[in-house]
């Protein structure tokens, strides 16, 4: 099939989503069921057309069709098949197409699972979703067409940036986009509610699964991006407070706040206006992230092409949606009734506390990210707001929040008993103190901050286990009963505990690797050994090797235990990709339990030696394992029965046959 079908399907999808943007909303305004009903089939059709378009582009990559400019610029006939496929979104045009693919995927999901939604709300939600789809499809067709042809077709492509030729490209962008774009559904729900001027507990219940889904994927996307940067860039760091990282972290913080405030709204009908605002802000931050990363404002491995026209276009979309939705919010917010009273010390109060700290943290990151950009735009001065700023502001904000985490799930709704909860958390508190004492003892009281950091992590983990233990009545009732109650607990309780536990795991990893990790930069010659974390590391020399589209020099290292027996071989390499004339470094990483040895090769020395950077990273994998636990928690919560609200029977509706006859 010709590539042009992909282009045609893209345009057809744009046209259809334009219809989806207008007709259902107009129908909802006129109470016209038939116009509203257009929303569902168009949402499906737009998704199907984008899938077709995406499949055709992927096919062009697979068969190396160099009559497509995008394939020429980002592929090579000798590239391994996996990278031919992942290369589809390893560039500006393709990644925007993936963005829209996921956007329309969520649109189709809403259409599919939306039977329990009132028709007018569903029509408005899908209509607003259509606005976003139309804007981005128009952006693609007008400025970033992936199907642009080139005549005559060259015989070979320019290959993909070697840094992107990694399994990470297969996982990180799709996960991250599922997160980023998933919040578009919350946004559409919020705008739809503002249009209708009617919002209630039911709204929160319909929105929550979408928030959870997006949050799970965004968590995974950020964690994967962090691990990818960790092993690919060869700097040994897992988070740099880089603007591109912050761009994904801000929606995550706001999304986490939204997740918690939607809970209050759903259960207690309170915090309605705030939740709607958070839903708008979360997706706005996603859009801001897309703008920062895609416009070329920031230079990073994510910047595929800097084209001022494109940047301006995304900025226009950004302004339209953020400005428009906030204006609508200002205009309609007072029509939303508030409800649900509660005491400050209560589950609701705890969740408000959570929201306060999370949104302040979001604002901190936002300022730290945008301030240097604005300053540069206004005065031309280049300043760098690095890790110290974020450690000074973001860190202290997180401490009270983390300390409060175990209290939240234990407090009762409406009116809680802080003292009672404190008593029930005594075991967890004792465990945390024990951890602090242990670290102080082992480090001869040198690492006070680390001791308290690890104590905090243990507190969060033990606290979430306490919640499970108390809710299943362990220690109060017989073991059999406790087990039965444990199994019978709502999945959302497990989800909460898992996610909070994961937070503790991540914190443990962060504190351990920051405090107890070691870094050495040495020049080594073959045969040299170096003591690292109780092992001896021997450098065995460089061997050349050839990959499918690169050549490399592999530095081989052997890890010897105390008895000088080899335990592991570590290979760290310097690669050269001839098609792009680009060198890359491949870090050599060996995982022992949750600890890692991390070796990165530097420059050759005169006389056969080489500069080697060696890191010992204790507990480092906990950082990402914690994120996995958080994802699992979100996933388990999604399975909770109460998120599946049935659709009402249509028996109470006016008899359809007579209505037809009288029409």
């Amino acid at each position, binding site marked *: 099939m010709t590539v042009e079908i992909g282009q045609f399907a893209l345009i057809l999808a*744009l046209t259809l989503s334009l219809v989806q943007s207008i007709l259902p909303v107009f129908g909802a305004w006129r109470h016209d069921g038939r116009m509203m009903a257009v929303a569902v089939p168009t949402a499906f059709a737009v998704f199907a057309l984008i899938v077709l378009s995406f499949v055709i582009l992927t096919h062009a990559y697979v068969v190396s069709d160099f009559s497509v400019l995008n394939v020429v610029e980002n592929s090579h006939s000798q590239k391994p098949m996996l990278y031919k496929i992942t290369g589809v979104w390893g560039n500006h045009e393709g990644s925007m197409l993936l963005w829209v693919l996921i956007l329309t995927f969520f649109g189709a999901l809403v259409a599919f699972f939306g039977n329990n939604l009132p028709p007018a709300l569903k029509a408005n939600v899908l209509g607003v979703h259509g606005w976003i789809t139309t804007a981005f499809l128009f952006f693609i067709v007008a400025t970033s067409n992936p199907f642009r042809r080139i005549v005559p077709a060259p015989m070979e492509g320019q290959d993909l940036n070697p840094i992107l030729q990694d399994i990470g490209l297969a996982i990180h962008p799709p996960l991250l986009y599922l997160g980023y774009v998933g919040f578009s559904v919350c946004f559409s729900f919020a705008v739809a509610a503002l249009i209708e001027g009617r919002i209630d507990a039911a709204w929160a219940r319909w929105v929550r699964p979408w928030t959870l889904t997006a949050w799970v994927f965004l968590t995974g996307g950020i964690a994967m991006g962090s691990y990818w940067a960790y092993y690919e860039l060869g700097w040994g760091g897992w988070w740099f407070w880089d603007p591109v990282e912050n761009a994904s972290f801000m929606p995550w913080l706001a999304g986490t706040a939204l997740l918690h405030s939607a809970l209050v709204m759903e259960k207690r009908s309170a915090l309605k206006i705030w939740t709607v605002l958070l839903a708008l802000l979360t997706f706005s931050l996603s859009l801001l992230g897309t703008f920062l990363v895609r416009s070329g404002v920031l230079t990073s491995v994510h910047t595929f092409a800097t084209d001022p026209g494109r940047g301006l276009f995304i900025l226009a979309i950004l302004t339209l949606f953020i400005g428009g939705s906030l204006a609508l919010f200002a205009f309609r917010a007072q029509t939303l009734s508030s409800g649900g009273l509660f005491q400050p010390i209560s589950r609701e109060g705890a969740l408000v506390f959570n929201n306060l700290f999370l949104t302040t943290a979001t604002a901190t990151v936002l300022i730290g990210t945008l301030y240097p950009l604005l300053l540069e735009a206004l005065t031309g001065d280049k300043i760098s707001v690095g890790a110290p700023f974020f450690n000074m502001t973001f860190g202290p904000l997180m401490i009270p929040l983390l300390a409060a985490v175990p209290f939240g799930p234990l407090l009762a*709704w409406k009116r809680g008993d802080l003292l009672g909860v404190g008593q029930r958390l005594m075991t967890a508190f004792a465990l945390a103190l024990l951890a602090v004492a242990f670290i102080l003892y082992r480090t001869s009281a040198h690492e006070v901050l680390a001791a308290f950091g690890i104590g905090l992590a243990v507190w969060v983990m033990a606290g979430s286990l306490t919640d499970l233990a108390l809710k299943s009545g362990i220690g109060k009732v017989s073991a059999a009963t406790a087990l039965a109650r444990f199994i019978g607990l709502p999945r959302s309780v497990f989800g909460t505990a898992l996610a909070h536990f994961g937070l503790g795991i991540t914190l443990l990893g962060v504190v351990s690797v920051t405090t107890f990790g070691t870094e050495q930069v040495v020049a080594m010659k073959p045969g040299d050994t170096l003591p690292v974390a109780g092992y001896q590391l021997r450098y065995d020399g460089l061997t050349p090797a050839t990959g499918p589209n690169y050549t490399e020099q592999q530095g081989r290292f052997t890890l010897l235990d105390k008895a000088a027996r080899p335990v592991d071989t570590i290979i760290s390499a310097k690669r050269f990709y001839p098609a792009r004339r680009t060198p890359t470094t491949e870090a050599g990483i060996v995982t022992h339990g949750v600890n890692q040895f991390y070796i990165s090769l530097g420059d050759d020395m005169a006389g056969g030696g080489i500069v080697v950077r060696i890191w010992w990273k204790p507990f480092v994998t906990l950082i990402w394992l914690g994120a996995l636990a958080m994802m699992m928690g979100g996933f388990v919560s999604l399975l909770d029965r109460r998120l599946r609200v049935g659709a009402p029977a249509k028996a109470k*509706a006016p008899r359809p046959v007579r209505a037809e006859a009288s029409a």
Partner: protein
Amino acid sequence: MFRLDSPRGPIMSARMEFWLIAVLLTFAATLAVLLPLTRRKTADAADGQYDLEVYRDQMREVDADAARGLIDPQSAEQARAEIGRRMLKAEHEAKQQDNTKIPGMQGARWVVLSAVLSVPLISWSLYALTGSPDVPAQPLAERMAKNPADGSVNELIARAEAHLAQNPDDGQGWDVLAPVYLRLQRPQDAVNAYRNAIRLQGESAERTLGLGEALALVAGGTITGDAQAMFERAAALDPNDIRPRFMIARGLMQEGRNGDAADLLQNFLDKAPADAPWRDQLKTAIERIRNPAVAAANGPDQEDVEAAANMNPEDRNAMINSMVATLDERLKQNPDDVEGWKRLVRSYLILNRRDDALAALKRGNDALAGEKRNDLVAFAKGLGLELAEVKP
């Protein structure tokens, strides 16, 4: 079926295939809009009904929480009352909405019509603006399978490269590709290809000569030791080939061994057959090497400049000195050359021989007359030389 020998056949049918699919897609997309609009009027459950479902669910949850002791009985009672109030309100709304009429479509006919029509109209006009329906798909494998005679040079090279990537031990392939690379100024690829050809097909004068040229080209024209070794090997392999000898001589000249270079070529010329077509050319070349004066008569030629660029500073100075001497000699015989005098004065200045520059200025001043003399004096003044400085 399409016949492969008809070049227009497959392209035409690919186009027809495209238009057919485009029409079908447009039709399906239009139906997605049209069908819901033409369905029979049915009434959905009122909004309140949907809310009621949620509240009933919430009520069940409060009961479950209370049973588990997560909420104290008093609060549970309050919560039930709260939800109950919401249910009453929702029920009331649902009843109200039951009575509202479902409006007809009369007033919105034009909206519906334009929505349905916009699907084919907008999509086809946008495609007309941005698409290229005449460009067929060109998967690489298909292009490679085409008759090679139709292909361009680049296509042929790509074809050969793809073939060699699969069969890196095809010596004949490397042998064909190597000189093509050399001619296309891709010396690194040429070096690689020649090395492979030699590895697989054995040495030959042609291959070693080509490798030498490629190596020299990689080094920016300098005949490196590696390249020189290759030329010598080529010369040994074919005692009658003049090309490697020329290259060797060039290498010797780059080292400043002009005499050796001339001897080498002279030696070859002596043994060469009398009817060799290149005899005269070779003779001139030897002449030029032996008497750089002849070469320098019209200023340094491109080759000399290139050679100078590749020399170390001492050699370069020696070469410039010899060229200046040649010029000086020529002006003695032919003094009426204002440009020559200017060049000489400047050359001496560049060589830091100010006295010689002044002497040259004086000689020029004596030799020239009128306009030309004034021209030279003004030129020298611009360089900071005054006739007055000249010692009598």
